[in-house]
């Protein structure tokens, strides 16, 4: 078959079939490029539709950022890629061109904030540890909805509070910044509940305005009457009460912080403060606690003695109870009177004292101070702490004080409250009074009388009766000495031998009673025999009780 060619006629049907098949195949092959084109087209469409907005972000530095690699993440989901990093024309910052995904267009607005997440360690926390391995990335806080934007200025520091975090912002106003830092913790009963978001100088320049954020659910504890104070690192205060050390936590020692409390003893329900409510930030806990009294009466106290140790903030006490504090201490010299006057301005919170019973006739609430001054109420400078020399103003009743009255509308702008000299000064006056009294004593006459008395005494001492009495006393002493010698030589040895005998007999008795001694063992045997005899007697009495006839008939034999 190999050398002979088969003729065409041998396979006529097959040839026809082959031709037909080749015709029908023609169009099928083109399915392949059509499918390829469809796939390609689908990919192009997908790429175009998934492409989101292209935005520009500026940063001070591109540390850790890499074009084509650094991602933009929102809630750790990739939403963009840094495509290009270049230096701005004025070379003051870097400009990042970022391609965002399509979904990002929904939340990017003019309020959106961007910042670079790098590993950073601060005194209060460690952030972005994951970026040590994965490299820095850009984080997004969408912010509230607003107009769409494509140009953004990146934050150099991560924001403390991102949008959507449950909680509430509050505004704190203070005279000094103290140790308040951005990110400093907020404490409520020593639990960390929030952070300081920002602080700035008020436009007037007279106070610091801090913005804080308290996380949910703790923001409910910020009431309208809540007081905030600086829980600065370590609060050491030296005052009339001695040394006080206060702190909220170890972190607050390092970075400071703010604490708040309501200082309310009653549990009346109170409305939580609204978002962005404004509060005063007190310098320390004591101040925050004290200023709960809203009514304050300012007085000026005129002292003439030294006010050493009296500083603004020193307490005003009424019999040991703080009722106010010193606001200011001034000094002036009156040429007319040739006297130094020290006006001390004090704020007194009269609400701290409660009154029992009705006010006396003709005395109104406003005139109560006048009434009390009439009754002898005076201000006095006292030393509170001998160690530190801190002074305070004491209010007390001095019934013997010179009559005085409140002077309203004086030149100081405050009501003048009468004062009384300090105790030390009082002692001085008392001492001079004493000296004056001593002066009046008739010392000469006393001396004459005294010498006459001494003369009489001498006369008595030299009388013969006295000499005789001394002689007989001497003889009595001699006899007493003889008696003593007898006692020592004769009675003492006898007593000694008696004691020795007693000791010997006691030790013999001890030997006899010692355990293991013959007496003891014999005693033991005797006791045991006695016990067995008693047992036998009991058995006998039992059997007699049961069978009284046995005493006559003898014991019945048991089976």
């Amino acid at each position, binding site marked *: 078959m190999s050398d002979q060619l088969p003729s065409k006629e041998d396979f006529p049907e097959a040839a026809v079939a082959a031709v037909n098949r080749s015709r029908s195949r023609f169009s099928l092959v083109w399915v392949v490029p059509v499918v390829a084109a469809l796939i*390609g087209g689908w990919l192009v469409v997908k790429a175009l539709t998934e492409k989101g907005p292209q935005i520009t972000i500026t940063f001070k530095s591109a540390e850790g950022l890499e074009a084509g690699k650094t991602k933009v993440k929102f809630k750790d989901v990739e939403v963009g890629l840094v495509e290009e990093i270049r230096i701005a024309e004025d070379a003051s910052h870097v400009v990042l061109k970022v391609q965002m995904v399509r979904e990002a267009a929904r939340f990017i607005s003019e309020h959106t904030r961007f910042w670079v997440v790098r590993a950073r360690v601060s005194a209060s926390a460690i952030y972005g540890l994951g970026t040590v391995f994965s490299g820095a990335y850009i984080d997004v806080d969408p912010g509230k909805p607003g107009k769409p934007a494509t140009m953004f200025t990146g934050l150099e520091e991560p924001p403390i509070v991102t949008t959507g975090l449950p909680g509430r912002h509050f505004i704190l106003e203070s005279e000094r910044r103290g140790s308040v830092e951005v990110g400093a913790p907020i404490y409520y009963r020593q639990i960390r509940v929030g952070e300081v978001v920002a602080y700035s100088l008020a436009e007037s320049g007279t106070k610091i305005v801090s913005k804080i954020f308290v996380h949910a659910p703790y923001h409910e504890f910020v009431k309208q009457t809540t007081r905030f104070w600086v829980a600065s690192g370590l609060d050491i205060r030296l005052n009339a009460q001695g040394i006080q050390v206060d702190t909220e936590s170890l972190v607050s020692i390092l970075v400071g912080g703010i604490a708040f409390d309501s200082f309310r003893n009653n549990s009346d329900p109170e409305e939580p403060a609204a978002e962005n409510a404004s509060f005063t930030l007190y310098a320390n806990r004591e101040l925050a606690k004290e200023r709960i009294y809203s009514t304050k009466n300012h007085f000026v106290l005129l002292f003439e003695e030294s006010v050493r140790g009296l500083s603004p903030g020193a307490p005003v006490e009424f019999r040991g109870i703080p009722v106010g504090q010193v606001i200011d201490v001034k000094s002036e010299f009156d040429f007319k009177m040739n006297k130094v006057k020290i006006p001390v301005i004090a704020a007194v919170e009269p609400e701290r004292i409660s009154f029992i019973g009705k006010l006396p006739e003709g005395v109104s609430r406003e005139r109560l101070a006048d009434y009390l001054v009439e009754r002898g109420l005076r201000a006095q400078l006292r030393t509170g702490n001998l160690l530190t020399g801190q002074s305070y103003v004491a209010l007390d009743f001095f019934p013997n004080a010179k009559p005085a009255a409140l002077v309203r509308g004086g030149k100081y702008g405050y009501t003048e409250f009468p004062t009384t000299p300090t105790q030390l000064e009082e002692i001085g006056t008392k001492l001079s009074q004493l000296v004056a009294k001593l002066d009046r004593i008739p010392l000469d006459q006393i001396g004459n009388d005294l010498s006459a008395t001494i003369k009489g005494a001498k006369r008595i001492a030299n009388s013969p009766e006295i000499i005789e009495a001394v002689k007989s006393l001497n003889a009595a002493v001699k006899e007493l000495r003889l008696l003593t010698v007898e006692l020592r030589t004769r009675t003492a040895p006898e007593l000694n031998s008696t004691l020795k005998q007693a000791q010997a007999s006691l030790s013999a008795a001890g030997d006899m009673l010692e355990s293991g001694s013959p007496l003891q063992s014999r005693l033991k045997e005797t006791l045991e025999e006695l016990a067995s005899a008693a047992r036998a007697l009991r058995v006998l009495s039992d059997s007699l009780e049961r069978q009284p006839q046995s005493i006559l008939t003898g014991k019945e034999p048991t089976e």
Partner: protein
Amino acid sequence: MKKKALTARKAGLVACTVCHLLSPDGAGRCPRCGAALHSRKPDSIARSWALVMAAAILYIPANVLPMTTVTSLGMVQSDTIMSGVVYFVQSGSWPIALVIFVASVFVPLLKLFILSYLLISVQRKSHFRPKDRTRLYLITEAVGRWSMLDIFVVTILVALVNLGALATIQAGPAALYFAAVVVLTMLAAMSFDPRLIWDVKEKMHE
């Protein structure tokens, strides 16, 4: 062609593509092994064109989309073929960059161009250097399988580098398109009949 050689077609014969038995032209099947008999590969040019075009279309996503996605210590990096080449060039590994470039970029592209050129030249009944063109075809066929190198490398890497959080490599969508390009170009080369190059010459001599 100085010496006129007899071709099977001229003799009215058809060679079986499987057992190489010569049968009379027009016979549907090889009488010895039963394979379909064709004097020339049926619809050779149309089929080749279709496959070349499909390969050319898929060549674009194969190069644009990421070939591998490397996750190393939380850092995710997607690489296309070209970015891989650029990476190796930048890191100084010139030989590896060259191998990847030749096997994955140059060879498929070369195949597509050669096949397109051969198809156009056959369709235009070109007389230009039939011997060299045949050599080009042989190169295309011989080199075709080596393009799969990239796919194999990716396959091995995906299987080997699976160290959990430390490092993992995942094949990207480009791997699929690239494999399709390689397979389609190989099929296109197979469906092209190099004898068509010489048919023009023969007709001219007739």
